[in-house]
């Protein structure tokens, strides 16, 4: 352990094993945990205290902004800036302005949500310490990983390693911090 560590990574065969490991780690008082799996594990996410409620708010806010901008611009362009008599219809033909408003609201909501998602996840991030772990590629296939980060107050390389080994993983590997 000459070079600094990002954390210690334990590999498991099943989601349940991973679940137990996480529970154990939390009981042991570890707080800086990160779990990796080939597919979404909602209960585990709860266990790790992930709150995703921000997503719908993003969507809602974006939709609102989009709608206001769209209706506002339609009104301003057709009724204020260059008021033209179009087929004798009123300048503010609000019913006719509604469809585009709704559509654009959806456009903003959709785009904001998905782009916001990437920002929240700090993606793109092509390089990440965990990629250095041997066998980690199977996380996108059939393996489950628990990582205790080195900046956890209770982290102490030897002890933590022992703790992880106690969870009977496939193996425990060091995650070198990127220099």
């Amino acid at each position: 352990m000459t070079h600094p560590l990002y954390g210690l990574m334990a590999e498991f065969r099943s989601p349940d094993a991973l679940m137990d490991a996480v529970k154990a780690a939390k009981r042991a008082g570890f707080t800086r945990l990160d779990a990796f799996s080939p597919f979404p594990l909602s209960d585990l996410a709860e266990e790790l205290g992930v709150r995703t409620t921000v997503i719908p708010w993003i969507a809602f806010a974006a939709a609102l902004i989009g709608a206001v901008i769209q209706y506002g611009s339609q009104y301003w362009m057709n009724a204020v800036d260059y008021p033209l008599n179009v087929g004798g219809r009123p300048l503010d033909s609000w019913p006719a302005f509604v469809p585009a408003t709704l559509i654009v609201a959806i456009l903003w909501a959709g785009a904001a949500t998905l782009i916001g998602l990437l920002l929240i996840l700090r993606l793109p991030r092509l390089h990440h310490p965990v990629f250095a772990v041997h066998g980690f590629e199977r996380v996108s296939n059939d393996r489950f990983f628990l990582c205790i980060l080195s900046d956890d107050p209770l982290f102490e390389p030897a002890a933590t390693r022992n703790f992880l080994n106690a969870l009977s993983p496939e193996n425990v590997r060091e995650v070198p911090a990127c220099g």
Partner: protein
Amino acid sequence: MSSEPQAVTSTVAEVPLSRRFGLIWWIALVVSGAFVLLLGYTLVSVTILGVGVWGVNIPFVWGFDLINYAWWIGIANGASLFAAILVLRRHDLRTSVNRFAEGVALFAVICAGIFPIFHLGRPWLFYWTFPYPATFQVWPQFRSTLTWDFWAISTHAIVTSLLWYVGLIPDLATLRDRARSKTAKRLYGVFALGWRGSVRHWAYHQRAYRLVAILVLPLILIMQSTVAFEFAVTLVPDWHETRQPLHFVATGLAQGLSIVLLVAVLLRWGLRLGHYIDEEDVDLLGKLVLASALVSGYLYLDEIASALLAGGLAQDATFKRITGDYAGLYWTAIVYSILIPQLFWLKAARQSTIAGIFVGVSIGTGIWFDRYSIIVGGLQTDYLPSISRTYSPTLPETGLFLGTVGLFAALLLLFVRFLPVVSMFEIRHDEHEENSS
């Protein structure tokens, strides 16, 4: 159980990662590529010479251009509507067909988008429908259904492609991790944006994905209605009907489903994904297709009923469309999109590849004729008898249509070749659930 997912991922991922493309694929690609060239040619010629090279005239100012536009949009909307519903219902079927349903939608929108631009008298000015601060200080006219449609189609394109891509990210990661060559790894790696399967990420990913899927539902309904409004808000006797949006949405769904079914059976057969798109899935798809065909059938009846109620010129117009010079179009539509799908009352038919291809194609064709009948057959009746004319398509516009079909096919081929056609992570997820239960 542990070996199971392994196998899953491999078979699906093998397709993009294998070097052997297969002769059929190549042939198919070359053929569709030829049609794409045809597309390019017809587009250039119409841009240079003008839309006069088509059969359009007064009063038939719209011909194949709008027919095909409405048709492609129908496919796009049907497919993404279907995809969205699946995501929301968290149905098993979703895992298998969802991905390429979205793909179909995306490619169909691309094909559709060609027409509104190139059917213009002066295509190079299409951007005038976008509100930008021009020095002549004239703005778009937002009361126009065409302006609504401009927003609708661009929104559809953007949201669908984003949704599709975000859904792809984890699978791209899988491909990254499984790819053999360094370049393939790097390529997939870049597009995977460094996805590392963190549970936290998964949680956000799922939430966002499902939310956008919800958003797609109203979008599709509005968009399909907008397309219908392009006809319904005009004074053309046969078009001026409130039922148009319903008709377009329902027939569009049938059409989208049929194309999805078509692709599904082709994939089963072509990529041997039988295990992941199994009889059950295809059977369910078949039932959906049948149901949607029945709904369309009901709407055709409703059409006649409302015509009877409307009376006057509107009635004449509808009946002339059903019995007049262009009656052939209408009845072809009925046969192909309503009658033939009744085949799917038989379980055997629903599960047979041949029948799947047959019905899929037939509904697609049928709805195409339906659009033809609505646009051309509808325009033949007008208020002043003096101006009635006839419309017959010319070679260039037929070529343009075939060209877009070629483009669609080509895109689909590249998609099945280089990307996972079914969502691998979701299959893993499902199987985990099965096993744990």
